[in-house]
């Protein structure tokens, strides 16, 4: 411990301004960029988004000669290009949960809500900062994954698709939109549950445990209900082909957005009403 001034005197502060949403946005940005988990999660999300298409493109190229004609016909270049999105969503969702639950586990939330006793500006700012950053990083990551996997497949003259073909650009941007919405959903869950472990497991339950369970249901039930799951609805944002029993990209995207709005609305109500 360093020596302290013998007679402490608090220096006066001339400027006195009020809390505003813009200032809280700036504050949350400082919080966001100043913890390590942010950089690690985002880096992991971006790397997975890029690495999986490259890996799958390489494996597909190498194994192409050994594949049956049906298997070859079932390969889709866009599935390969967007393979990382399914994995990256976990890293991004964990970050979404942590953005809010880490404040509860460390007690920072008390300082945050003492500075901003209206509380809601903190939630809005967290969502805004977080959504912008993950979208801005995911768009180039998805594009790099696409062009890299296409370049690898091109060397073997396989599965070429142009970004100008119908639905391709939409699917690529849709992948980035999907991950961003998933992150917002996870952040909302985190704000409701208020614990990191609880938030991550609730999210994983909804996105990774319930969907495979649906396969146990009779096919007609699964096809009727399964498309309304957040993961299944959201997947239509970056799926090129759509079956009769799936939603359109617009409907699926809107439904996932609706789930996000519902979760965040519940989080907002609880945030204001609960004791910290």
């Amino acid at each position, binding site marked *: 411990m360093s020596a302290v001034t013998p007679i402490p005197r608090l220096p006066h502060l001339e400027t006195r301004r009020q809390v505003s949403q813009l200032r809280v946005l700036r504050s949350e940005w*400082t919080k966001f960029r100043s913890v390590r988990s942010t950089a690690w999660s985002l880096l992991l999300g971006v790397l997975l988004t890029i690495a999986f298409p490259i890996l799958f493109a390489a494996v597909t190229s190498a194994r192409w000669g050994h594949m049956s004609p049906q298997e070859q016909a079932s390969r889709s270049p866009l599935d390969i290009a967007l393979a990382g999105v399914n994995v990256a969503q976990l890293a991004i969702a964990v970050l979404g949960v942590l953005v809010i639950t880490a404040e509860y586990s460390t007690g920072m939330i008390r300082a945050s809500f003492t500075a901003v006793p209206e509380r809601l500006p903190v939630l809005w700012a967290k969502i805004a900062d977080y959504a912008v950053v993950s979208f801005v990083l995911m768009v180039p990551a998805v594009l790099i994954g696409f062009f890299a996997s296409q370049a690898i497949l091109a060397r073997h003259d396989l599965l070429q698709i142009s970004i100008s073909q119908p639905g391709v650009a939409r699917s690529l941007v849709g992948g980035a939109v999907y991950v961003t919405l998933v992150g917002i959903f996870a952040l909302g869950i985190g704000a409701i549950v208020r614990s990191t472990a609880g938030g991550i497991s609730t999210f994983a339950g909804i996105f990774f445990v319930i969907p495979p369970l649906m396969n146990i249901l009779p096919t007609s039930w699964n096809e009727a209900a399964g498309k309304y799951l957040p993961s299944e609805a959201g997947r239509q944002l970056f799926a090129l082909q759509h079956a009769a029993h799936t939603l359109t990209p617009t409907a699926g995207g809107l439904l996932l957005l609706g789930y996000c709005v519902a979760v965040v609305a519940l989080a907002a109500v609880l945030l204001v009403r609960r004791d910290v």
Partner: protein
Amino acid sequence: MIEARELTKDYGEKRAVDCLSFTVEPGIVTGFLGPNGSGKSTTMRLILGLDAPTRGDVTVNGKHYRDHPAPLHEVGALLEARSVHTGRSAVNHLLALAQTHGIPRRRVGELIDLVGLHEVARKRAGQFSLGMGQRLGIATALLGDPQTVMLDEPVNGLDPEGIHWIRNLLKGLAAEGRTVFVSSHLMSEMALTADHLIVIGRGRLIADTSVDDFVALASQKVVLVRSPEVARLRHLLAGPDVTFEAGERGALEVHGLTAEQVGDVAAESGIAIHELTPQQASLEEAFMNMTRDEVEFGHLEQPVEVAV
């Protein structure tokens, strides 16, 4: 200025704060005293609007905390539980809070210097010692140059130098006309810092008094007398509320009378007095007497820590 009116908070079946009314005035240091678990921290959370009261009301500088458009300029608070993200540096912690009010970045540096954290300002707060964490909490409380300063157990984890420093700081803040409200479970600490005391036990108000009055109120009247005619004096002093104990080396301990009363009786009867000493109860004794019935768990020796 902090004003609580019939402030009550239940957590399920348990009543943490029970119909508490008090006013904390500007310009002095007000100690908030009570055994551990008596509701001090809950009261402070209610003041800050972190918890909502079950009944009653509390305002700071005339408004509910939540209704202040710039709360960090009104109240600076250090809560007992740590309120810092362990992965963030002291500088970024303070900066993030400053930015909510548009407080300039250089203020963060000023506060870091004030609390003596410049050498560790860029280290992650999770690596801080208890004392450093406490200093960071104090810096956080003072960030907005607030009119009211509220600190929950500020000396916890501070070294003697740090304790001395915080006492001077608090007295200085009060001398500038600020409202200073400091909680402690250590009476001896309050004796050195506070001018006024609000004492609670089991969430209820026990005393709202100046430090001097507190001792007088809580301590019994005890006078030590030494006289060659101690037996005659004892006979003359006897009364319904008066009891005697044998003191050291032939002295007599008179309970229930003031030194003035004992001296007058002796003078009237022409009894020589060699010593007449009022026995002041220490603050710690006064505090224990007062909270004897209000201690949450078991016997008093347990929960009330006495500082040396």
